């Protein structure tokens, strides 16, 4: 038959598949190419652990420790908000709610996960920040606390949706055996169902972590932006993503500041990459079982 058409089709799809590899290497190559040269000027340990971020001073200093800490603070804050609420909601929807309610709740969660982050940023900036400032009598509402809440609200649908998926794959027989042995509903949930879905739940948390630490618009708009290590959750901070987004416009292509921002992107990429690989392993183990 038409073998050359067969071959052409195969070759075409094969070539298309190579694009993901090309794109990934393109991303890695471009951020390393633009970012690594900063190490000619700053030593690696001074870049990572230096706590003075003055890229535009006459004698500039490029220490990103404050930015890393800023990212870690708002991300952990977001997880403190999102993990109990997201997981609690997922358990409720999967274990307690009626099938009808489950059928309605799942798509709604999915819809919420699609809301653009800039809209969360707008909400934080125009509504929550002024409210927080008033409630706690602060000089500014743009701080770690506010951005953690907003990021948390953003991450809840991700954690809830993925945890619910994990919980729903727990075999029904496990629940029924536990109940038949006289365990209460709560005991069944806490000692049987949740432990059985543990890997999926950890995986969802890690995905949420990756999403929160890489999120730009919310922290850019709500975290305040001061490049100092915040001494309280009501202080303003500048996470890595917001430093990149806020300062890139001021740089000249190829200058030290530009290079340093790409170098921050390298650090961010490595953090999310490591998180992903770790998550993969967690998930792979589950599917291998």
């Amino acid at each position, binding site marked *: 038959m038409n073998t050359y058409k067969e071959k052409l089709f195969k070759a075409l799809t094969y070539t298309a*598949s190579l694009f993901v590899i090309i794109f990934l290497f*393109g991303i890695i190559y471009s*951020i390393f190419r633009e970012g690594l040269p900063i190490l000619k000027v700053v030593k690696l340990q001074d870049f990572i652990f230096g706590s003075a971020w003055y890229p535009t001073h006459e004698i500039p200093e490029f220490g990103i420790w404050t930015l890393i800490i800023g990212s870690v603070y708002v991300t952990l804050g977001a997880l403190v908000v999102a993990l109990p609420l997201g997981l609690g909601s997922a358990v409720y929807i999967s274990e307690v709610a009626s099938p009808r309610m489950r059928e309605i709740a799942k798509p709604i969660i999915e*819809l919420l996960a699609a809301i653009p982050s800039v809209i969360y940023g707008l909400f934080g900036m125009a509504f929550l920040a002024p409210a927080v400032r008033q409630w706690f009598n602060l000089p500014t509402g743009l701080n770690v606390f506010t951005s953690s809440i907003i990021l948390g609200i953003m991450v809840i649908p991700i954690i809830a949706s993925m945890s619910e998926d994990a919980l729903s794959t727990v075999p029904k027989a496990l629940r029924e055996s536990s109940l038949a042995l006289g365990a209460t509903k709560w005991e069944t949930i806490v000692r049987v169902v949740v432990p059985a879905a543990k890997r999926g739940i950890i995986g969802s948390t890690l995905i949420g972590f990756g999403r929160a630490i890489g999120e730009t618009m919310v922290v850019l708009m709500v975290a305040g932006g001061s490049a100092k290590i915040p001494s309280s959750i009501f202080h303003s901070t500048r996470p890595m993503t917001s430093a990149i987004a806020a300062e890139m416009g001021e740089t000249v292509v190829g200058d030290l500041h530009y290079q340093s921002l790409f170098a921050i992107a390298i650090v961010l990429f490595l953090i999310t990459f490591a998180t992903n690989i770790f998550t993969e392993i967690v998930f792979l183990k589950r599917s291998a079982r």
Partner: protein
Amino acid sequence: MTYRRLKSHIGINLLRLCLAVTALFLIAFLFRIFSKGLSVISWQFLTTPPKNSMTAGGIYPALVGTFWLTVTSIGIAFPLGIMTAIWLNAYGKPAWLVRIIRISINTLAGVPSIIYGLFGMALFVNMLRFDVSIIAGALTLAVLALPMIINASEEALKSVPVDFRDASLALGATKRQTIMRVLIPTALPNILTGTIISIGRVAGETAPIMFTAATFYSRRLPNGIFDEVMALPYHIYALMTEGTKAESQVPIAYGTAVVLLMLVLSISATAIIIRYRIRKKRKW
């Protein structure tokens, strides 16, 4: 015994509380956006350009910009994504290459959107000299959408029963014919659902277009794909952070947010409804 029952009762109500708090947060969020933004929207708001350095007027150029960015990027990512999914599903040899491709897809899916922005700026804007333009932004967004489209298409292809493929092959159809006439048509609704969801995501992204496509303020429409554009998500950010007249800019930002939100939510809702219908109708 009663203690255990009580504990169970409290525990379950605690879970109910979690869901209630979550719902409350989200309702407050949506209510605030809609209550502040709906009143701003009018036909004029949608069809006129901004005036007086963004303190008045509409968002027409941003709507058009978001349309072109989204259409162009999906136009690039969709064929690539579906072909990749076909190769992974139907050919997929050698195994080591499949593994590398899968790792790449997963890694790409987890890359923060701001890094896509930097990548697009370094490659498309500076190296390839596209400047800040629709095409640079659309290519950046296409790379971002690609893993989503591949994953959705592959899921869809996987859900086609093996019998269908075997039957087609047994009738003497070639592999290509089986893919084009049996696999793809059967999986198409699901593929489209996944693609529609990624359209919603792409339309709402801000960070990737910040340095590759978007401009703060433009009274005219783009002249071609090498022209910079306004875009809805970036417009919201610009209104909130640039300029000095907060009292007249914030309402416009809310209005723009409602337009973007309705756009994204209606796109995603369409996808979810289509999927629901397919699941109900499917006979295998």
